[in-house]
């Protein structure tokens, strides 16, 4: 296994900047997820690494070796394609054996490796079938088995679970995680499903418009989104963003928002005090808001609009001053529409976001390696 290193890679299609100056390093044995909305360039970046797309500019390294000008077969990669791409004219066995046959491995070795890859993916009883005789989930496994059967340096996966139904996807997700831990592969995994990204990745690279906006651990991407877009894209419900006005009263920095006042913690105050404009966006996740039934000094008054019981918790939409806000509460929390409630924001968890640029104030440059 080896590391993947991408250096200021560009790929355009006509006027479309599919990938624009992307730098990315995936460490040896690391599992990195490329996450982003449809059309942001995830597949294109993966194809550039695989050599299926010629880069306009920049270099690609796999395991310290510059592979930019090598064809796919010389890059020692394995790939799982978005639509499986299992060969319909070959049996499952021959599909899984394809890469090994191309390497002219001895017969008994091929047999052994196919067998063990098939066992890992629980398709050992399907080896004689043709892909047309398989279900979508089984075909999926064949595609993964084909990829892990060869000795590749890195494993590239393009939305391998996207065509499965919700239940199967959940099951395969857990299986993949176990599997990849077992084979210790360096993996770059593309998805536009944030839950998949959060649950699978060692790190997540969030892409938009051909660029990587943030590259960090799932927890940090979720808790400390680098900007407005990421906060809104990741998490269900998305992060709440409230208009805030920064001012100083009696030598103390406060932020007026949601018809009330909140008191930023000291580190945040330091950053906020350096703002040129006194306005800021207050980003807060639904689970970082506490509901109180009586007024308190640091609580904001809100009115319940909608209560959505979700089993494990309730999702409540409230009117807070001129804005709406979503709040998670315990499942046994009782509320009626129209009822008045007080909200206390956990100020340690607030993301302070520059209104003009949309970037988080404490977020300088995203760490790239």
């Amino acid at each position, binding site marked *: 296994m080896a590391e993947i290193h991408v250096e200021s890679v560009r790929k355009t299609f006509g006027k479309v900047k599919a990938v624009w100056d992307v730098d990315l390093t995936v460490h040896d044995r690391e599992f990195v997820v490329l996450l982003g909305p449809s059309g942001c360039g995830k597949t294109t970046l993966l194809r550039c690494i695989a050599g299926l797309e010629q880069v306009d500019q920049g270099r690609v390294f796999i395991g310290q070796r510059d592979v930019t000008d090598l064809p796919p077969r010389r890059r020692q990669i394995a790939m799982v*394609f978005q639509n499986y*791409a299992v060969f319909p004219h070959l049996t499952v066995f021959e599909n899984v054996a394809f890469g090994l046959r191309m390497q002219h491995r001895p017969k008994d070795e091929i047999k052994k490796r196919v067998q063990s890859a098939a066992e890992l993916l629980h398709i050992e009883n399907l080896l004689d079938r043709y892909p047309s005789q398989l279900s979508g989930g089984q075909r999926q496994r064949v595609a993964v088995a084909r990829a892990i059967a060869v000795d590749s340096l890195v494993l590239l996966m393009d939305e391998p679970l996207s065509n499965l139904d919700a239940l199967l996807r959940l099951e395969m997700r857990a299986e993949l995680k176990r599997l990849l831990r077992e084979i210790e592969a360096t993996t770059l995994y593309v998805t536009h499903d944030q839950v998949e990204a959060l649950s699978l990745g060692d790190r997540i690279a969030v892409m938009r418009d051909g660029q990587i906006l943030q590259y960090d651990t799932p927890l940090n991407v979720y808790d400390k989104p680098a900007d407005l877009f990421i906060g809104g894209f990741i998490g269900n419900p998305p992060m709440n963003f409230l208009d805030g006005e920064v001012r100083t009263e009696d030598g103390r920095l406060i932020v007026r928002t949601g018809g009330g006042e909140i008191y930023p913690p000291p580190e945040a105050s330091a950053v906020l005090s350096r703002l040129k404009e006194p306005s800021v966006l207050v980003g807060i996740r639904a689970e970082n808001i506490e509901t109180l039934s009586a007024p308190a000094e640091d609580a904001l008054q809100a009115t319940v609009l909608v209560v959505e019981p979700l089993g494990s918790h309730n999702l409540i939409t409230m009117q807070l001053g001129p804005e709406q806000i979503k709040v998670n509460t315990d499942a046994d929390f009782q509320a009626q529409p129209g009822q008045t409630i007080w909200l206390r924001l956990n100020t340690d968890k607030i993301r302070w976001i520059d209104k003009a640029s949309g970037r988080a104030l404490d977020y300088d440059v995203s760490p790239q390696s």
Partner: protein
Amino acid sequence: MKRKTSYSRLVVRGLVYLVAVLIALWILIPIYLITIAAFSPKDVIYSWPKSLFPQTISLETLKFFVSAQYVLPSLRNSVVVALLTLVISLVIGAPAGYALARYIFRGKDIFRIMILSTRAFPIVILSIPLAVTFMKWGLYDNLISVAILHVAMALPTTILVTSSVFVGVSKELEEAATVFGCSRVQAFTRVALPLALPGLAASAIFTFVLSWNEVFAATILTLQNRTLPARLFIQLAASPLPFRFAGGFFILIPAITFMFFIRRYLFSLWGITLK
């Protein structure tokens, strides 16, 4: 309301079947009549009224036909020309079709139109200058020259049909092959080609039948080495009735068996079943 729709659907269905049956009969009845005549003895062929069901089956007429001195050689000529045409037009046409399907290149649309426009030249007009040219090249009265002309006639459809066949073979499959160790050429021969085979076979059938049935060019470009249709075209008008039926039968049968053979063989691959 529901009754009415199911009733009208039934009517539409019935009409569709009726038309299908009529078309089938229109083709099958002459084939049938030719076939029974070919297997009837001479006196039955000349007798009138005709019976729709053969009373006596005999090989007399066919034997008479085959024993005519030119028939077997020209039958052989026909097979040679048809196979040559098939092979050459696939060898040239399939790569061209592949290029049209897979690559974007300058002048692609014009290329496509030009391929089609070659069909706009009537073979009648092409044949005479071609005959002169082939004479100069020393290819006159040679089966190769007939095959070349047949290739020219078949190539446009071969290219367009194979291109749509290759469009139907997902590009991702070839890309997967290159990722797992194939060069571009290997990806083509190991993945795209086998998957395209049924479509290529259909195109081959078409080419074979086109060459097998072509009369005009074959007549103009040859003297001694005539293909069967060209020979019969000249000869039949002057032949007795049993001979004509046997000739018709001979023209018909190889084309039909060839079609059935290839169709069955290829469709049964990869579990596509004929219903």
